[in-house]
């Protein structure tokens, strides 16, 4: 039984590193890989939590996550946008990477602080101690990624990382989440990616770039 708690803690540690990686990585392909890793860790955590008091719901969460986020979603993103988008490096963020990292640090401290009341009441072996603060931190760091990034794909990955964080905290709190909600959420995410991907592709075809930062100014003719 203890090794399940241990492995879950390990997954938690790696999960928050992946969240920081998505925030700080410039190359979009590496960003996508880190997102896949993060989703894999989320699935692993759900599987581990589903094992110890046996819960078919959490197993299902793990399976859905594995299929949609680890395999299907990256494949979809790769298919929708051409290779050039992924080899690109993002040079200009809204704020520089070191300051974004420091803000993320403050957010993580906040996440630990806010989840203190949960952590204090939980028993030492409970997954809440790991999953709630780290999931909350992952959510906040994802939101930060969403605001600092200026490329469409990495913004999208920030949004998905937010969702991953919410799930990571959620699987420890709400053990018996109805399966239908899980399924609905998973398909929601897929539809979101599909729409955003098609939109990004259209923008890319028209303007030759996926930099969202340029969209703030109005222009009649396409930007070169």
């Amino acid at each position, binding site marked *: 039984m203890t090794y399940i708690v*241990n492995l879950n*803690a390990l997954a938690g540690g790696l999960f928050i*590193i992946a969240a*920081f990686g998505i925030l700080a990585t410039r190359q979009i392909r590496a960003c996508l890989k880190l997102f896949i890793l993060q989703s894999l860790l989320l699935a692993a955590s759900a599987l581990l939590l589903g094992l110890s008091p046996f819960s078919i719901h959490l197993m299902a969460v793990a399976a859905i996550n594995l299929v949609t986020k680890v395999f299907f979603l990256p494949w979809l993103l790769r298919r929708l946008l051409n290779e050039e988008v992924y080899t690109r490096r993002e040079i200009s963020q809204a704020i520089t990477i070191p300051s974004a*990292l*420091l803000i993320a*640090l403050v957010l*993580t*401290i906040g996440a630990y602080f806010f989840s203190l009341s949960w952590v204090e009441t939980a028993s030492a072996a409970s997954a809440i101690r790991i999953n709630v603060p780290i999931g909350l931190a992952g959510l906040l760091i994802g939101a930060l990624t969403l605001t600092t990034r200026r490329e469409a794909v990495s913004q999208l990955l920030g949004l998905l990382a937010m969702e991953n964080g919410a799930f990571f905290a959620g699987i420890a709190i709400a053990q018996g989440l109805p399966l239908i909600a899980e399924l609905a959420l998973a398909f929601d995410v897929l539809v979101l990616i599909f729409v955003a991907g098609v939109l990004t592709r259209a923008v890319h075809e028209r303007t030759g770039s996926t930099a969202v930062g340029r969209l703030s100014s109005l222009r009649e003719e396409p930007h070169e």
Partner: protein
Amino acid sequence: MVKHILFNILQVLVVMGFSPLAVGVLNCLKEIVQSKRGPSIFQPYRDLRKLFAKDEVVAEESSWIFRVTPYIVFVAPIFVALLIPVLTSYPLFWAFMGDMVGAGFVLALGGFFAALAAVDTANPYGSMGASRTRMVGFLAEPVFLIVFFSVSFVADSTIPYIVQQKWVTPMANFFEPSHILLLVAFIMLILAEKGRIPVDNPSGHFELAMIEESKDLEYSGRGAALMKWGGWMKFFVLMIVFSNVLLTPWGLASTMDWGAILLAILLVMIKILFFILFLVLVESSLAKLRLFRISEFMSAAFVIAVISMLTSVFS
């Protein structure tokens, strides 16, 4: 007591004797990954023998610092080898003379003199390298301190022999997020401190791009040999701290007999080999960062170290 002192001396001999081998294996494996044949793993020993046999040339304008530095650089890692658990899991004669912070200071002293000596001969490349090393150094310094803070939060001590026990008793400590984050931060520190890719390219011979290597360009003969050997020993000592104190505190001798010690030498070498394999993987898959991107790398290490401390405080 006599045996403790003997074992302590043996630790130093292991660090002195095997550090060129570790570097040789690293260089050889890196070349093999690039589908070359690679130099012999004993090449560093041959380099040392060649350099010790050669004459030494010292610039006329240089001061005593230039002459003293090779000895300081050579001796600093030896002192650290006395303080850390290289072979045994029980404290040896010198174990309580200094903690991990002390060991860090002793290593930093060597780095400080190396930087001074690089400026001393007024070789432009030397001072450029020295200023860059200092830049990396002062970005690494806060990370070092935070790592020690988070170690002391977990183990209530920074003596390496005590820290080593705390990570595995109870076993749950080993899997804690604070431990994982600490390991990542410390790996990034080793890469920065020893000038490996992605911070610096150790096999590059282009002076303008050098960080670490350009400091001993002016040395020849015995001075060069001592500087090189000292650098390898520092690298070896950092790997030992990482593998024996932080990552895998198993496989060390727990009894006083010589058989256990010899077995421990073998196991430590296997651990180092795994660390070297990891380094080869990192070095052949990443590119060197631009100079001003290093601050990003180090700030990532800093943030990871602070979160490691945070998680150990809050849990």
